[in-house]
């Protein structure tokens, strides 16, 4: 059987842990990226995390540590998952670190209330947002109309952004 080209054949391993280097114009550019599932406050419960203490699950305990982790990473691109507490915490804190933030779907969708969302945070001094598009992963159920396994909860999103690196253009 002849197989089509594999994605693996299209993939180039990077040479630095969690850092992606590429050539843009004639100058090599090093980009530091971070992916971080911050654990939604609404999901930080003993039922889901029986090994953690109540203090460790307390948002007041976790929140400043999460922000400090992001700050210390030095990342200029941060991909966040399970983001809630946006209006009363994350939005302000991320902006104070110099990030602009593009959020995934928030609020209700199809009558289902979302518990959390995703976000792409980028350092405004390094990146310019050119375009963004939200992908509703729930649309995949159209492929399988008669299969209940593809009934998803609200706000199962992915997000695409085109960001221009200011320095290398």
């Amino acid at each position, binding site marked *: 059987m002849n197989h089509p080209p594999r994605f*693996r054949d*299209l*993939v180039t*391993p990077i040479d630095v842990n969690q850092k992606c280097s*590429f050539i*843009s114009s004639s100058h090599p550019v090093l980009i530091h990226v971070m992916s971080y599932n911050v654990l939604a406050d609404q999901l930080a419960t003993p039922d889901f995390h029986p090994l953690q203490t109540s203090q460790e699950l307390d948002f007041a305990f976790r929140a400043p540590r999460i922000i400090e982790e992001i700050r210390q990473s030095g990342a200029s691109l941060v991909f966040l*998952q399970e983001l809630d507490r946006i209006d009363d915490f994350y939005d302000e804190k991320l902006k104070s670190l110099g990030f602009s933030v593009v959020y995934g779907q928030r609020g209700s969708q199809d009558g289902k209330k979302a518990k959390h969302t995703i976000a792409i945070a980028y350092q405004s001094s390094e990146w310019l947002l050119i375009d963004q598009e939200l992908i509703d992963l729930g649309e995949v159920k159209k492929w399988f109309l008669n299969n209940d396994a*593809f009934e998803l909860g609200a706000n199962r999103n992915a997000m*695409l952004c085109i960001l221009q690196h200011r320095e290398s253009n």
Partner: protein
Amino acid sequence: MKFAQAVFFLEKAAKYLSESKGMQESLPFICGGDFNSLPVSSVLSVFYGEDFGDDSKQPSAWSLPESIPQARLDLYKQIDQMRMRKAKNDMFSPLAGHLRSAYDKF
């Protein structure tokens, strides 16, 4: 479900790149997230273009659990066949040269 979502996402990403006229040649495509899945999983096998099959040797070391229900196995195969058809029709080709990976570092 996640397996299908991964295929769906790559198709959408490829379409998005192809519609970014004038940028295809210069755009690195950085894909970040937890994919709601483990590093050793069917989802990551999609990103790595691994062949689906009960007896194939997957670089991600992912394999179907022995106790998988037949209905779910059939669904995996159905989705994989869909993936292969889309790949043969070059629906993922705009991603060629844009994907880089940190997978080997973990």
